């Protein structure tokens, strides 16, 4: 089994995924704070990066779920992990290009499941674990988050109704910073764990670790750094969709949304549910729209997101399965290397596509005109 060169390649690919996970998800924590002006955009992403780093060390429950709860570790090879990662990264980049806050976790899990299916068939997937720890939480978590956020929003406006408009928005902007920090921390406890789980899976597949082993310290550290760097670079396209596209947000709503997200993600992480921080954050933001009289939820934007969510697991699985089939057809280490080269090429292509309609810290808060880039470009509008 053991092939250290390929193992290194897989670990690097996994860290690359972790990096895309970070910048894809900055918005979950910081979009509403940036949208209401509670934090300057660059301060927000820096703060979020640091807290993701801390959060990654806080809980290891989710890493354990990914490493041993979803697929039969005996059937997993390094090639399978590499192909699965390719599926996850490509789906993450495509959705980022369109500014869709889809779930990085589902992209990763979908990719891995797809490649496992292609390699060894349905018996290698632990379906019960997949449904009870991934699919059901994916359906339930945004609904619970929306409910909590709607109740929170209603309470905040009710309790603070005697405050002047200025004092209210000032006060809640301070609260928002605190709650946004909690979401970043929570993101580290949930999302950084997923890559740790995958690298642990690769180490088990390579025979470096015994099955059921926990993530070694260097894996925890590397993942924490990768996700925190990705977060710092900031996925401005997704931030814009979440902060401006879905609901026009005031600071009390922002605080309610983030508190609900942070609470749900932290609680679920402790139970080892690998839920999507993206789904929770989106649910919360919609909830704040429902909890305030007169607020409008842009359901067409929400609908587009929900569609992307449904497609995330299967699409990433397809790419993962394709990558596995290709690597298998070529065979051995060469197969993995060809997969990686294709992955880098596709990532480069998407990056250059994104330059055509750039969204960054300068224009992230421009008026929402229907597309992710402030001046609608036919190329970027879905």
């Amino acid at each position, binding site marked *: 089994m053991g092939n250290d060169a390929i193992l290194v390649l897989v670990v690097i690919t996994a860290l690359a995924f972790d990096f895309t996970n970070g910048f894809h998800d900055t918005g979950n924590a910081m979009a509403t704070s940036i949208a209401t002006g509670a934090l300057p955009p660059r301060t927000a992403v820096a703060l979020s990066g640091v807290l993701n780093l801390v959060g990654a060390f*806080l*809980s*290891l*429950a989710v890493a354990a779920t990914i490493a041993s709860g979803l697929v039969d570790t005996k059937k997993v090879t390094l090639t399978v992990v590499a192909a699965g990662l390719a599926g996850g990264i490509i789906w993450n980049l495509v959705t980022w290009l369109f500014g869709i806050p889809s779930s990085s976790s589902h992209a990763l899990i979908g990719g891995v499941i797809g490649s496992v299916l292609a390699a060894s068939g349905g018996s290698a997937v632990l379906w*019960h674990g997949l*449904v*009870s720890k991934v699919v*059901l939480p994916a359906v*339930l978590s945004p609904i*619970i*988050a929306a409910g*909590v*956020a709607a*109740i*929170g929003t209603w*309470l*905040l406006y009710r*309790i*603070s109704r*005697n*405050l*002047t*408009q*200025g*004092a*209210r*928005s*000032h*006060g*809640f902007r*301070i*609260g928002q910073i*605190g*709650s946004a920090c*909690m979401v970043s*921390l929570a993101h580290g*406890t949930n999302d950084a764990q997923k890559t740790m789980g995958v690298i642990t899976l690769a180490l088990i597949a390579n025979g470096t670790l*015994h099955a*059921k*082993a*926990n993530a070694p310290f260097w894996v925890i550290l590397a993942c924490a750094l990768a996700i925190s760097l990705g977060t710092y670079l900031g996925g401005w396209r997704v931030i814009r969709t979440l902060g401006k596209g879905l609901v026009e947000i005031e600071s*009390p709503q922002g*605080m*309610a949304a983030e*508190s*609900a*997200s*942070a*609470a*749900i993600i*932290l*609680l*679920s*992480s*402790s*139970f080892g*549910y690998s839920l999507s921080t993206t789904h929770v954050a989106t649910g919360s933001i919609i909830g704040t729209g429902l909890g305030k009289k007169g607020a409008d939820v842009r359901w067409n934007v929400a609908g587009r997101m929900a569609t992307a969510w449904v497609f995330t697991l299967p699409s990433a699985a397809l790419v993962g399965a394709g990558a596995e089939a290709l690597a298998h057809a070529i065979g051995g280490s060469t197969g993995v290397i060809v997969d990686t080269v294709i992955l880098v090429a596709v990532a480069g292509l998407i990056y250059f596509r994104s330059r055509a309609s750039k969204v960054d810290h300068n224009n992230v808060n421009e008026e929402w005109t229907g597309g992710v880039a402030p001046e609608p470009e036919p190329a970027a509008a879905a």
Partner: protein
Amino acid sequence: MSWINLSALWKIIVFGLLAGAGLPALFAFGLRELALPGGGRTQTAGAGADADSDRLVGGNPVGMVIAAICFLIILAAIGWGIYEVYQIGHPAPAKH
């Protein structure tokens, strides 16, 4: 094995509501107490002294004490929550 872990689900809902909606509500209550006007004597200390309209501190001593208690409870709850997550998330290391 069941598909839904009901005991985890209800804990997530109940604690989610307490922490996710209750704590911000407590924060809002603290803000309201903090803004209570202080019998004729205006205080310009504290945040937001630049614009009258967004000043947070009203100057009522009782209000300020209540607000401080609210904010302390929130901080304590967050600290406790993080500690619990750390405890649950680091089970005793598996034997080698």
